[in-house]
């Protein structure tokens, strides 16, 4: 936390600069691959490389044709429509289920809390390909394989752990005596939940929902197994695109998705901070 002090030893000075260097390297490593994609998506040629014109900042080297392709090509439009239909529904399910699970598991009288928690979190830990294969066989048996609801359920299962984790974290700071206070004032458990508990844990619910949405929106492995051609999502289309045609349209799509993600994240973070401010720090 502290900056350089007049009494800092040479080792501390070295660490002060070394620490910043390490941080910078980490950020470069994480962000550079994403940043490279953005200018490339405006490439006028059909290659994944920076052309001479681009490097010379010649306007002729840039074009919006890949974006044009994305917004007019029916393959991409179907994929986009599928993603937009699947992700919100999966988010809704995982947010509702994850929030309820977190509230239930935060109650001390629930037996086997650790084991239940571990089971619910497992989709996050188990290798995705294993979950996907398992879901494929299971969903085939019960007729969910290759259906819209099959993909939604699979994505909801993947998103729920994020909601459970964020809501559980918010519940740690939740003052249980508020529930008792509401009861003493005559509110039944449902009213207490809606009027008292829910508004206070909303920031955690929103964060969890955001993660769940991004999980579904970016997911490719499970949808390849569980979905059929009519559930082809954006990541799936990108994956096939990469394998079969290597069109820079993928870069345009990626840029659009990154932008959407950043906008979503920013808006929700602003909302979350606002509700956290309203919630105020718990008295005392």
């Amino acid at each position, binding site marked *: 936390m502290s900056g350089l002090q007049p009494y800092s030893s040479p080792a501390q000075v070295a660490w002060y600069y070394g620490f910043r260097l390490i941080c910078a390297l980490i950020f470069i490593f994480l962000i550079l691959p994403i940043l490279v994609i953005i200018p490339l998506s405006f490439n006028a040629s059909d290659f994944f490389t920076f052309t001479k014109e681009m490097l010379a900042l010649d306007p002729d080297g840039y074009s919006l044709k890949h974006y044009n392709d994305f917004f007019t090509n029916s393959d991409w439009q179907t994929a986009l429509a599928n993603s937009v239909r699947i992700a919100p529904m999966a988010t809704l399910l995982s947010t509702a289920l994850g929030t309820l699970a977190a509230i239930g598991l935060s109650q001390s009288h629930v037996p086997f809390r650790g084991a239940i928690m571990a089971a619910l979190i497992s989709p996050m830990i188990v290798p995705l390909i294993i979950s996907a294969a398992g879901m494929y066989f299971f969903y085939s048996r019960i007729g969910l394989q290759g259906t819209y609801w099959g993909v939604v359920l699979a994505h909801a299962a993947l998103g729920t752990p994020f909601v459970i984790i964020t809501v559980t974290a918010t519940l740690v700071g939740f003052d249980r*005596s508020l529930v008792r206070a509401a009861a003493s004032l005559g509110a039944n458990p449902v009213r207490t939940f809606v009027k008292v508990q829910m508004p206070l844990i909303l920031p955690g619910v929103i964060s969890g929902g955001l993660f769940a949405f991004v999980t579904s929106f970016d997911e490719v492995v499970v949808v390849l197994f569980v979905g059929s051609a009519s559930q082809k999502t954006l990541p799936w289309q990108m994956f096939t695109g990469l394998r079969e045609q290597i069109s820079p349209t993928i870069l345009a799509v990626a840029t659009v998705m990154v932008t959407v993600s950043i906008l979503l994240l920013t808006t929700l973070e602003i909302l979350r901070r606002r509700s956290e401010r*309203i919630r105020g720090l718990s*008295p005392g």
Partner: protein
Amino acid sequence: MADGAADEYIVRFENVQKSYDGETLVVKNLNLNVEAGEFLTMLGPSGSGKTTCLMMLAGFEPATHGEIYLKETPINKVPPHKRGIGMVFQNYALFPHMTVAENLAFPLQVRGMNKADAETKVKRALEMVQLPQMSGRRPAQLSGGQQQRVAVARALVFEPDLVLMDEPLGALDKNLREEMQFEIKHIHENLGVSVVYVTHDQSEALTMSNRIAVFDDGIIQQLAAPEVLYEKPDNAFVAQFIGENNKLLGTVKSVSDGVAKVDLEGGGTVEALAIKCGAAGERTMLSIRPERVLIAQEDMPNRLTGKVVELIYLGDHIRCRMEVAASKEFVVKVPNSHAHAALRVGEETAIGWVTEDCRALDVR
């Protein structure tokens, strides 16, 4: 008041027991009546079972055994939100996302009261706790004392017959605590609501209560008005817990007409009221309040010699610690007046007291 008819009781605990683990009883066979309009305090050290009793009454903890009656209705099977009991919590438990007015309106909305009536009630309740201008603030914007006032107002705004308070002043500083003690006491007197108050602070209990139930080890040690508890403790625990107490250990020599002759450890024989001391030959603890011990008295039935160990000047009185019999912690409060002999550390002086001020109790 003491022998009122059964229907004047607002709360009745009948053989109530509570165990959390199924083995140890936290509350052992509690029988307690709270009279209508009474301010009853449950006082005791932590772990004595007082808060558990309050939680059972509020409905947040089930009684393991026995029955609690609210106005003659058994309430063991009534959930907390249907009991209609107001409650003030130790940490205030105000809803942080609601304004003060919304906090107060909450119990009224729950009861389906129309908006105009609710607003009038909220306003009146805020005036009662002297915070009418704070209705638009959020709890986090209020000081601790103001939050506590809001919590009290919220517990009273729906006009319950009974309000429970769980160490509500514990988090406040000393001056504010004393101010709030009087304020709560006055609110109680004005509204005529029954209050069951839990605290571990004996001065708080003595200031506010009509009656105090002293808890220890899951048992009510004594249930009495404040002055009775202080002046006539039934047992050694109450004598030691309420106020300052001098204890002298000894053996009962004889008991007659309610007066025990006691041979003190360290020499000397004194007389004391035989309250809970057993028969001749048994050990007893004598209890005498520091302000009832007099210095250099010739005509007292009980006279001993004490060696002054420490003198602390406190303005209106001088606190004198001395060695008396086997006790090195014998304290005498000497009034600051010319009539009293000057005491010096290291000197011996005669002390005495009247038999009625000394109580022979059990040895703990």
